[in-house]
């Protein structure tokens, strides 16, 4: 590779103007050459020093660039360090170290699952049976999941993509769900030490029950299967008691209703609505009669458990009724999906969905691929109809058929090339009633 081109890639990286293709190229270059890695590190040092110089320049705009280390800078740095120490001290009071007791174990897992233990400078891939201290579990891809069992047999199913932190200290168990889906079966907790489940928009206090939580950065949906859960909406501190077969949605913007309501009878038809049902992707609101669209988000996939592959760029849009609807959406034998979307060009597209048991946790993930041909005169619009029979289960441990299970979420995805995938809607039709 020519120095000039590599330098250009570095500049684009450090100036945050790099494209997906260029990032993949830079990654490949750096992986294959130590010389280029040394050059890249030099660019990072230059970027660091330029930032430092900019800080000085800003204060003395129009005059000389400061030299380092100046006394003023040194004093500033000492002040910053003192502040850091203060922060560290405060944090250490609230999060004392030495908590290395094993609190749970991995009962089952699949796919890209990574564990980062608190207070240890290690991270690693998990195996079934691994004992866990407090820490963070990252379940990266749509076909990944993990089952965590606490010492009191309370069980947490984590379905990817999700980021969840667990701890079990003097105040009881705490589960922090940054995003994703959890299915919890909680054993009776000691008096005064309830389990707390915290998301960006809600906090649930649990004494012993079975419930599902689905969290995004702006909204949390919680449905209770057994027992009672107390849910606080963090936006305004209001509280709801959610009983069995009821659910509640807590959004960050507190104008939306926050009221526990019965889940109601199951339904067999559903159509995605934005922004309510967005699970992953970048929502673009339509103007002047144009529909809203969910633009696929780009992310890197680095292989499932045990694999080590070159990173693959994925572009995913995900919608799901669990994000905002209380009525479970059941899949019947004759159910079919209609997906309407947009592609810049004809391309291979992956479609898939996840299902829940009727009163509980994850039951399966299913997917299929289709080559989508877009016609020149349709401005990239496509429409695909798929029956349940078109989908295959992703792992043998999942239920063989999704029939009779609840629809959790539906994804549309392309691999490697960004071909402008957007989803207008996903619709479920079920022409025949489900026999009870």
């Amino acid at each position, binding site marked *: 590779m020519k120095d000039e081109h590599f330098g250009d890639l570095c500049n684009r990286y450090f100036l945050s103007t790099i494209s*997906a293709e260029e990032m993949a190229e830079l990654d490949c270059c750096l992986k294959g050459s130590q010389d280029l890695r040394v050059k890249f590190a030099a660019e990072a040092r230059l970027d660091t020093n330029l930032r430092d110089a900019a800080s000085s320049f800003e204060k003395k705009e129009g005059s000389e660039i400061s030299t380092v280390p100046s006394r003023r800078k040194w004093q500033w740095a000492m002040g910053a360090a003192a502040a850091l120490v203060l922060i560290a001290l405060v944090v250490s009071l609230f999060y004392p170290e030495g908590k290395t007791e094993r609190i749970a174990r991995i009962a089952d897992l699949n796919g890209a699952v990574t564990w980062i233990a608190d207070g240890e400078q290690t991270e690693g891939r998990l195996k079934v049976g691994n004992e866990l201290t407090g820490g963070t579990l990252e379940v990266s891809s749509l076909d990944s999941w993990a089952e965590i069992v606490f010492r009191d047999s309370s069980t947490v199913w984590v379905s990817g*993509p999700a980021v969840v932190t667990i701890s079990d200290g003097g105040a009881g168990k705490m589960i922090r769900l940054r995003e994703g889906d959890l299915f919890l079966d909680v054993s009776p907790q000691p008096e005064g030490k309830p389990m707390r489940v915290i998301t960006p928009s809600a906090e649930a206090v649990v004494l012993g029950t079975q419930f599902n939580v689905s969290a995004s950065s702006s909204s949390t949906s919680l449905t209770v299967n057994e027992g009672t859960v107390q849910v606080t909406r963090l936006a305004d501190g209001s509280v709801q008691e959610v009983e069995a077969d009821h659910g509640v949605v807590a959004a960050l913007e507190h104008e939306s209703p926050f009221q526990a309501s019965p889940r109601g009878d199951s339904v067999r038809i559903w159509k995605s609505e934005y922004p309510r049902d967005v699970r992953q992707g970048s929502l673009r609101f339509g103007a002047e009669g144009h529909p809203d669209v969910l633009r696929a988000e780009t992310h*890197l996939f680095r292989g499932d458990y045990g694999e080590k592959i070159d990173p693959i760029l994925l572009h995913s849009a995900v919608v799901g009724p669990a994000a905002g609807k209380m009525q479970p959406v059941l899949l019947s034998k004759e159910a079919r999906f209609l997906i309407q979307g947009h592609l810049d060009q004809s391309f291979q597209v992956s479609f898939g969905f996840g299902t829940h048991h009727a009163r509980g946790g994850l039951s399966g993930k299913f997917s299929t691929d289709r080559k989508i041909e877009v016609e020149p005169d349709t401005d990239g619009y496509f429409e695909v109809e798929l029956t349940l029979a078109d989908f295959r289960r992703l792992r043998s441990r999942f239920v063989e058929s999704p029939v009779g299970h609840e629809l959790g979420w539906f994804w549309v995805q392309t691999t490697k090339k960004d071909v402008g995938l957007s989803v207008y809607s996903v619709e479920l039709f079920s022409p025949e009633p489900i026999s009870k």
Partner: protein
Amino acid sequence: MNKEKEAGFMRMFVAHEPELRAFLRTLLPSWELVDDVLQEASVVMWNKLDQLENEEGFVPWAKVIVRFKAMHALRSVARDRLVLSEETVGLLAEDTPDSNSERIHFERRALDSCLQKLSLENRRLVLMPYQRSGALSELAQRTNRSVNSLYKLLGRLREKLRLCVEQELITKGGES
């Protein structure tokens, strides 16, 4: 709190903070992430200070903590933005020498000298991305130029500065 311990930590952290920052910049795609991770890592360092056997071991020890935190942060943002692969980031971390503080100090001094060789206008341009987001777009509007052309110029100026810093280090040999 042990005052001696506090003072020792502050001294070591301040002395090596530019190196830790540069190390993190090698691993992470944005300055926002670098700042967040360094702050989180400093808390861990403080909590784990008893593990540090002597001051000479501070940088390698701190880099282990910083690297761990950086990998964690990378995974968190990987779905939303473009990042290098974990394997590549791991290689970049491995290739970094144990201690680099002196080199960074000399390069910073050389950069000052090289910046003085640029016109004030170009000096402003090359430092602009670190001062305020959106400043480049505003400049493009004000001067009737495309943002893309400004980025191209910026790229050339950075390359010029990089070569100048190399040359300064050779000719002055790190003399301070």
